[in-house]
């Protein structure tokens, strides 16, 4: 696809067209390394375009509705104060339409640095783009080309950072808007942080939230990262996380997909040092015509590392769920312990689930397994509950909760787990009210 010269071209061409127009005004335009990176990303995006289903990694997620939408960048900042989701801790960074809002944030007096990316760009040479891959990931190339802001967190060695809320709110606007925040999180040796990201947006608003995370967890550090995706029902979210974990470090990710018309949550974790660990858990709660895709790639690139993944998808209405999860064990990664389970529960005859777990193993002394199940609510269990006097709707709800429990209980951090529980319960209450 190439940029068209006139009007408001849509799809990849539209984004490239706007990049050409905006390039000199984007943050960091005068910083050589930033502008060069954007140029490379634009070239990569030009070559790849929006991925089609012919690309193996996008086999089950069709981006045509997104490509057809024709987005604008939110050039004028909103200064009203939109409703914010409840806070989980004292510290919070708030982004409205992808822009950092100091007035709504609370980042003072923290034992670590948390600042707007736009303001800290000059000091990010070598760190920005250090993990993200523009060559193989068109959505990452798009983000790199057009990012305007983001959150930069640096927790010094040995510091316990506590809980940090990262809030992203989209506002309604006349034309569909797109924002591409870039968040950089770095934990020094032995440091810890719980990052709880909540993404929301208004009903019926069409927008694209396309965040990219570059996360570095140094030796012995521990990051808990909860992503509570509750975007508006016409919104698109395409999120890509890159996490690198060094020796003895832990990266604990939980993703909730409960909102958006179309969401793809992609996580690439690299266990780069011995005895590093990664836990990935997730729940997808889908209804109507929602499409949710969780794609994980776990690279075991060092010996003695462990990874655990548990993903659960509940599908109602005409929704469609996708899970793709690859465990890649490099030859050096002896004594790897890798486990992955993904399960789907179909509540509707019109729903569809596609699942592609994958093992790619080049070391022999490993213990790797994956499992996948798809099914409906167990008739015997349902009957048992009803025979004890529980009404059918409640019995179903109990069984769905039980189904999700395993994924939520896998989350170590209590605050994060509480946030998840609340989000899941909220989803259920909305379901029951609608029914």
């Amino acid at each position, binding site marked *: 696809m190439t940029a068209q010269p006139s009007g408001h071209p849509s799809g990849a061409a539209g984004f490239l067209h706007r990049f050409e127009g905006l390039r000199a005004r984007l943050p960091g335009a005068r910083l050589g390394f930033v502008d060069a990176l954007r140029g490379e990303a634009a070239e990569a995006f030009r070559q790849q375009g929006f991925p089609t289903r012919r690309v193996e990694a996008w086999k089950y997620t069709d981006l045509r509705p997104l490509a057809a939408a024709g987005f604008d960048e939110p050039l004028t900042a909103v200064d009203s104060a939109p409703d914010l989701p409840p806070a989980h801790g004292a510290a919070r960074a708030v982004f409205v339409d992808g822009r950092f809002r100091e007035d709504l944030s609370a980042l003072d007096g923290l034992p670590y640095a948390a600042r707007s990316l736009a303001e800290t760009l000059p000091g990010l040479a070598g760190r920005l783009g250090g993990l993200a891959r523009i060559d193989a990931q068109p959505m990452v190339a798009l983000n790199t080309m057009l990012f305007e802001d983001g959150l930069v967190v640096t927790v010094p060695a040995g510091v316990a950072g506590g809980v940090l809320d990262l809030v992203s709110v989209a506002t309604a606007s006349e034309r569909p808007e797109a924002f591409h925040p870039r968040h950089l999180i770095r934990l020094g040796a032995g440091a810890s942080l719980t990052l709880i990201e909540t993404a929301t947006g208004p009903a019926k608003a069409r927008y694209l939230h396309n965040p990219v995370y570059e996360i570095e967890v140094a030796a012995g550090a521990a990051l808990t990262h909860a992503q509570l995706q509750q975007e508006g029902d016409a919104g698109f979210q395409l999120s890509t996380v890159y996490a690198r974990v060094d020796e003895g470090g832990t990266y604990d990710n939980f993703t909730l997909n409960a909102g958006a018309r179309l969401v793809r949550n992609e996580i690439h974790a690299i266990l780069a040092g011995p005895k590093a660990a990664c836990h990935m858990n997730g729940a997808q709660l889908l209804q109507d015509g929602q499409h949710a895709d969780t794609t994980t790639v776990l690279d075991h690139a060092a010996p003695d590392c462990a990874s655990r993944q548990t993903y659960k998808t509940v599908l109602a209405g005409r929704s469609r769920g996708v899970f793709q999860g690859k465990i890649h064990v490099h030859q050096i990664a002896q004594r790897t312990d890798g486990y992955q389970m993904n399960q789907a529960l179909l509540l509707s005859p019109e729903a569809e689930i*596609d699942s592609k777990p994958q093992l*790619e193993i080049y070391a022999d002394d490993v213990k790797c*397994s994956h499992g996948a199940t798809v099914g409906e609510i167990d008739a015997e269990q349902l009957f048992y509950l009803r025979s004890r006097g529980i009404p059918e709707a409640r019995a179903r709800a109990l069984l769905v909760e039980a189904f999700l429990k395993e994924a939520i209980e896998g989350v170590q951090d209590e605050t994060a787990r509480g946030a998840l529980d609340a989000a899941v319960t909220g989803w259920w209450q909305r379901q029951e009210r609608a029914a």
Partner: protein
Amino acid sequence: MPAVTETIDTVQSVTEGAYKWGFETDIEMEFAPKGLNEDIVRFISRKKNEPAWLLDWRLKAFAMWQKIEEPRWPAVSYPPIDYQDAYYYAAPKQTVKPRSLDEVDPELLKTYAKLGIPLKEQAILAGVEGAGETPSEGGRMPVAVDAVFDSVSVATTFKARLEKEGIIFCSISEAVQNHPELVRQYLGTVVPQGDNFYAALNSAVFTDGSFVYIPKGVRCPMELSTYFRINAKSTGQFERTLIIADEGSTVSYLEGCTAPMRDENQLHAAVVELVALDDATIKYSTVQNWYPGDAEGRGGIYNFVTKRAQCRGRRSKVSWTQVETGSAITWKYPSCVLLGDDSVGEFYSVAITNNRQQADTGTKMIHVGKRTTSTIVSKGISAGRGQNTYRGLVRVAPTAGSARNFTQCDSLLIGDQCGAHTVPYIENRCMTAKVEHEATTSRIAEDQLFYCRQRGLSEEDAVGLIVNGFCREVLKELPMEFAVEAQKLLQISLEGSVG
């Protein structure tokens, strides 16, 4: 040095000559000119005295083939194949069917002897009329054999006996002459000409293969078997097998294959189509032992095969069992399309890759009918520098109410230079369906080896025993005679470079 490493080293040293079937038969052959074009397709069709509709069918396939791209998605790598640098027709020059053993080309006889086929069967294979009519000694169930030597079927045994039951078992060339209506009705209905690159190629140039028709209500009284042998240099083998099990019938079919050791790679692109009607059962077993190439990866067969079954009838059943030990590269996915309500598909597979072998194999189970069930059991063993991929698709259509699938994929790694990969696809659009998939990866543990050795087993025997145990669920699906062969073959295949 840990025991496993030591074993690997020991066994790596005996690689040379591990392939016992690697000899070449010096026999007078007839070839078509090298290369592939419409004239070659016409040449083959003329040589086989085919009706016009079949020539048209081939030419259509050839036209499709020219437009299809060679698949690049399998996890295998090989240099580009020059499709113009091969012979597409090669046959032993034997025009008159021999009447006694003395008339059979002695080189052909020697070939069968070397392949370890007993004397009596040898007479059968060489096409001596009448030899197959005597029941074999020891009261064992006789096996009817169709032997395909390079491009043509050289003999089919027990034909008369089978005809008494109304069973047709012959080469597909003969079927085209004698049962054209059946061939025309079913050919290409399971695997259409343009299905994929290799199927299109096969449809254009297929030279022979087996044809089986089991009439209504008949239980085939013996195992049917085809023995494939590639012998000539620079030839591809493109056989086409078509098996039709009519209502209420049952058949068990076996397939075996070998080839000489050569430095060049040879292409084997077969198509197998199975049709099972109401209440029919087809059991299809393969022991694939094409030449795998040497320890450095020189030579060996490229085995690019399309095998598919349609369970068209209610309660029909197709069971694929494969033991894949040979070939430099294996690319095959024996599949079941479960159309009839309550139909059943099964896939049991053992695939070994040793030295530099690559295998990308698995199955597709397509559930369309109600209450259809499928079972997949795949055992991959990687050794040496082998790369072994299981790739499978389970698709459940909205119409397949209460469909069930269970998949178990296990990989065993022997040594740290090999790879084991699992790529299952699950696509479910039916609420009441239940799909379960499990995959594990393991290696032979030091303590298992030591335990066996403490009881007096040599390391090699211990590994053989453990590997056979690992494959047991699949091997038990093979017919008895084949199972014993397969077990030995597993051990021999591992000798090449494993512990």
